[in-house]
């Protein structure tokens, strides 16, 4: 079976600084994979490279065996890869409903249609309603996204990410800044929404990582120093030294 995502010898340099050094990573289809590492290790840059926000300096990135390195973000999104952002990135002046609807439009084949009435598209309405119910924001439907609470905005962020029906989902620190109870709810939401899909998640909260992930990769100074099941990572001496040990100390 081809991997959902595969990175081969990916490098990214800004000027003379090598932010990502020769990353090789394979994520199987249907796998929940966590990317962890200290601040500045290059986790968000890796996300930006995979999602097309940045172009890798060298190396290739494969989505289901097809080269996507160098494609624009919307081209990659149309091939079924969707990402969320670490800093909430929604359409602040539009209502929750409209936010989700925008995320559904391309996937339902509306493209740039200017001859169809937006309220007359049953499939769009149905899918938007479904996502709205999943993320438990039905009672916030008509509120401008900018007025939601932080946790609600994070939920909407995830909703927008999965609404298009992409089967490869990248979530960048979805629970950052949430309370314990909110984190638990968010993890439950992520688990449900990514059922049967491939998930790559960057996360600092170790309880989230070990509770959710099938596989974990550890990124330190732009290099993957270990990759394996949660048990393997826990027992890995290099990881303990470079990362977990630091946390424990």
């Amino acid at each position, binding site marked *: 079976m081809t991997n959902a995502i595969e990175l081969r010898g990916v490098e990214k340099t800004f000027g003379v600084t090598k932010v990502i050094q020769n990353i090789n990573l394979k994520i199987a289809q249907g796998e929940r994979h966590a990317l962890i590492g200290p601040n500045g290790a290059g986790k968000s840059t890796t996300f930006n490279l995979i999602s097309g926000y940045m172009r890798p300096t060298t190396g290739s990135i494969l989505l289901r065996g097809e080269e996507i390195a160098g494609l624009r973000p919307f081209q990659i999104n149309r091939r079924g890869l*969707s990402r969320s952002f670490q800093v909430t990135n929604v359409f602040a002046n539009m209502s929750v409903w409209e936010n989700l609807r925008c995320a559904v439009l391309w996937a339902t084949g509306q493209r740039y249609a200017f001859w169809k009435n937006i*309220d007359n598209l049953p499939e769009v309405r149905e899918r938007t309603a479904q996502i709205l119910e999943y993320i438990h924001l039905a009672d916030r439907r008509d509120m401008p996204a900018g007025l939601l609470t932080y946790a609600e905005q994070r939920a909407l962020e995830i909703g927008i990410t999965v609404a298009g029906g992409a089967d490869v989902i990248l979530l960048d620190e979805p629970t950052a800044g949430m309370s314990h109870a909110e984190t638990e709810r968010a993890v439950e939401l992520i688990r449900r929404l990514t059922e049967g899909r491939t998930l790559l998640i960057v996360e600092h909260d170790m309880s989230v990582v070990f509770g959710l992930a099938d596989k974990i990769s550890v990124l330190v100074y732009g290099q993957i120093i270990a990759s394996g099941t949660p048990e393997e990572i826990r027992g890995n001496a290099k990881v303990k030294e470079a990362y977990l040990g630091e946390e424990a100390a």
Partner: protein
Amino acid sequence: MRDITTRIAPPLPTTAEKLKFYGMWVGLALFLLVLPKIFASGGALTTFCLIGISIIFALSYNILLGQTGMLSFGHAVYYGLGGFLAIHAINYFGGHKWPIPLPLVPVIGGATGLFFSALIGWVMTQRSGTAFAMISLGLAELIASSALILRSFFGGEAGVSANRTKMFRVFELSFGPQIQIYYLVAAWTLIAIIAMYALTRTPLGRMCNAVRDNPERVQFVGYDPHVVRYLAFCFAGMFAGIAGSLAAINFEIANSAYLGAVQSGTVLFAAYIGGIGFFIGPIVGAIFVTVLSIGLSDLTSVWQLYFGLFFIGVVMFTPGGLTGLMMMHRPLWRAGMLTKMLPSYLLAGVPTFAFLTGIMLAIETTVHYTAHPNEDPNIRAFGIPFNATSPLTWSAAVLLIVVGFILARITWRRVAHTWDETLTAARAKVHPL
């Protein structure tokens, strides 16, 4: 699955709401139909024509600024080119006896606007924000100055004129009398308003708003913001071309002023003063600005100065424009509490009026001193006579400005306070906990 939609999605409009919606458009059409019966003078009809043209132009501009978040300083380019092509079309079709009647000329104007915006837009819409604004400005200057150089097409300083009555006639309509031009402009205005409103209710229209709010995120839901901006730009250019051709029909002339920076600036003013955040904003703005520019120029010689000051005032104090100001009062209106604001508005209105009168007096005396120092100092502005050299006038101006300003500050603070209280009460009344 169906039940999710009915339970969670916003309800579809009921038959009553649909009737109300379509009734509104029919009402607008009827209004336009009977308007010249109420105001039948030639001056009024000309004003209505100018307003209609200005509405189409301002709405087309708002497809860029309000809907898609692109600040253009050169929207008159498509207006002007539409106007020039329309004039040439009238001359050509009239001269060669082609069976094309005058009411179809705006189609040519629209096609011209669409053609040029499609041609130029792809490069311009690569970026929004400052880069787009600068390119639009540079391009507008380029085309406006070439209008004076390419004399064979643009007619140089004098422009190109035409005789609209020479066109092929249907139903014996000569389009000589202004009333016939009024109905032509009114019909096109109605069509354009409906079309541009419908555009906001389509997938493209909604994605325009998304691009305005967050172009970065749009890329990650499968859309290319550049294509969205480009399509919006093409539509804006097309409707601007229609407006320009109507202006050409109305005046029977097109000249380089159509394409110029003043025209581009005026449409920005109209859209912004009306309120770019609302569909009807530019309509309100177009009516207001047209009436104001016609009315003010009769009252004072420096009407552009007042116009500029008014624009600054709107930008500073009501960024939502006149429509935003009206919409702010909607919760109070619904709760029937609008009258609670009246006393404090009146209280603040008096010193504000005094302050503005002082400013106007100061402006008019200064203008007299700088522009015509040797003429009769007994001048009139806004129909009020006064002596521009009298120290009494100066001290009155200073007094009005200083005292008016101080009292206005105090009373407007009271207004803000009353506003907060009334709004809270109104919300509690409409949504009791």
